[in-house]
């Protein structure tokens, strides 16, 4: 039991450190941490559907974007408090997941991935089209944000919630069943598992958090526009973070988001003009060299439990 206790106390120390960070860290550190939390939540959410069931959501940023617009509009047009507006971002994201997931989760393999890719393009097109409401291509500007510290805690809470939920799922039968879909969906069906319903549940859960994160992001960034909240690159980034850390694990997305965010900050900022090329090379490297991710490899080599 002692490694368990050790890991737990380490976790508590890290959490305590993060809790007091805004009192000591500079604005830059806090701002950077917000982005790391955001990526942790996004990568963790993608993990819920794709890491567990194997259905590749290739347009997951759509839920983020929908949440961002909801938050932005509720703040600017309805005068909502940003916290409420951000949380409300989850509702249209969930609705979208339901409407799209119900038909599309029947599609197998690459067809599902492409349908999701298309979904994102469509949502972006619709947002641009309803100009009167969404500001079209120029987007929505929000009042300037006075302190980012509250956003720090809010975003951190979402990242933590996603991670806790992942842990909860992985330790119950729902999680096992999602994994069985990834492993062999037909066998799961024949064994009496209602795969269609479970996939939809997982999809819903995986859409809710990006919606909230999007809502908070709108407030944090003070501006949303179709190009900034619907890029395919954001989907790819959350996928690659999850993959790098280890998909289908609890802390994989956390680790991947943390490491790659730091990498991004250190390397990409210095090579502004080639950062896309570097990212492209990184993707190729992760896919070819470590598709199981850091935790996946450790898990296999040292027979670690699924709950890491």
């Amino acid at each position: 039991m002692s490694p368990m206790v050790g890991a737990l106390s380490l976790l508590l120390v890290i959490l305590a450190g993060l809790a007091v960070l805004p009192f000591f860290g500079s604005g830059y550190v806090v701002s950077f941490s917000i982005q790391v939390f955001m990526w942790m939540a996004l990568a963790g959410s993608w993990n819920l559907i794709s890491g567990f069931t194997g259905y590749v959501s290739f347009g997951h940023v759509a839920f983020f974007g929908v949440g961002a617009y909801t938050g932005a509009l509720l703040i600017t047009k309805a005068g909502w408090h940003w916290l409420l507006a951000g949380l409300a971002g989850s509702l249209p994201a969930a609705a979208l997941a339901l409407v799209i997931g119900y038909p599309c989760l029947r599609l197998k393999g690459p067809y599902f991935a492409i349908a999701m890719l298309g979904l994102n393009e469509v949502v972006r097109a619709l947002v641009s089209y309803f100009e009167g409401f969404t500001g079209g291509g120029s987007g929505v500007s929000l009042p300037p944000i006075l302190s980012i510290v509250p956003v720090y805690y809010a975003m951190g809470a979402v990242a933590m919630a996603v991670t806790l939920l992942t842990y909860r799922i992985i330790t119950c039968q729902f999680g096992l069943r999602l994994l069985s879909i990834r492993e062999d969906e037909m066998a799961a069906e024949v064994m009496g598992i209602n795969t269609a319903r479970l996939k939809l549940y997982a999809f819903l859960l995986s859409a809710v958090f990006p919606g909230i994160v999007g809502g908070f992001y709108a407030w944090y960034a003070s501006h949303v526009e179709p190009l900034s909240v619907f890029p395919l690159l954001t989907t790819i980034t959350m996928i690659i973070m999850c993959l790098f850390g280890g998909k289908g694990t609890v802390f994989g997305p956390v680790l991947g988001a943390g490491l790659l965010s730091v990498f991004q900050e250190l390397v990409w900022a210095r090579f502004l003009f080639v950062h896309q090329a570097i990212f492209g090379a990184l993707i190729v490297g992760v896919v070819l060299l470590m598709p199981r991710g850091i935790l996946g490899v450790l898990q296999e080599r040292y027979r670690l439990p699924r709950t890491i």
Partner: protein
Amino acid sequence: MTSVQITGTMLFQLVVSGLLAGGLYALVALGLSLIFGVMRVINIAHGTLLMLGAYTTYWLFALAGMNPFVSLVVSIPILFVVGAILQKLFVHRVVNAPELSSLLLTFGISIFIANVAMLAWSADYRSVEFLTGSFLLGPIALSKPRLVSFCVALALTGLAFVFLHRTKTGKAIRATSQHRDVAQVCGINVRRIDLITFGLGAALAGAGGSLVSVMFAVYPEMGQVYVFKSFLVIVLGGAGNYPGAFFGGLLLGLVEGLASLFLTAQLSEVIAYILLVIVLLVRPTGLLGGRA
């Protein structure tokens, strides 16, 4: 919306220009379809390869004054080689992997190449001003570059079919896409077929790029829209059904042309998506029937 009288001529004009665009879609989609059929890999870099073809034509035109249509004899072999290299170095390693690997891998390759292209050639919009103006056919105006591109696209598609049906290699490609394992057992070198197929797919994308360059602006991200459209074409025609890809291309062009009558370009994208999902759900083998 102001009430515009829709006349028969207008409709006919839209049908014709829709079909002209569709011929190009068919050519580009055939490349994606070949790769998808043989390897089950969705090549997200397909649009980037198209962009490379367009730049090949642009530079040959700008620097050497070469006729863009003649430049096909350069862009096609160049892209074939590029495709074969990509296959040899990277793609062959994800052929039997889950779709996530190939989607990410080809996306990574795609942004890498696009970034390098931007560094080398800047993000400026460039154009190949070769053929301008229109042929007038009674009340119908046919844009010259589009018409010629359409004819060339048709000819190239036809050539590709002849290759697939008449040559030994072409037959081996079709056999592999129908039954990979059986093809292997029958003595077909599947690895070699993969290589040729990816080269061929890239070459078709490159040819498409050369043809696009006489109609639209050339810039590093120009190819992106073609990936999703090509996939839509494959789905319409039925995966693994290569003639289906041809008709799917024409159909998509037609639908887009007619949709432009009633909808903005953005909303026609929505229509295209809904079409995709419906076809996938109701007729997963494509409108023309293919192998699931």
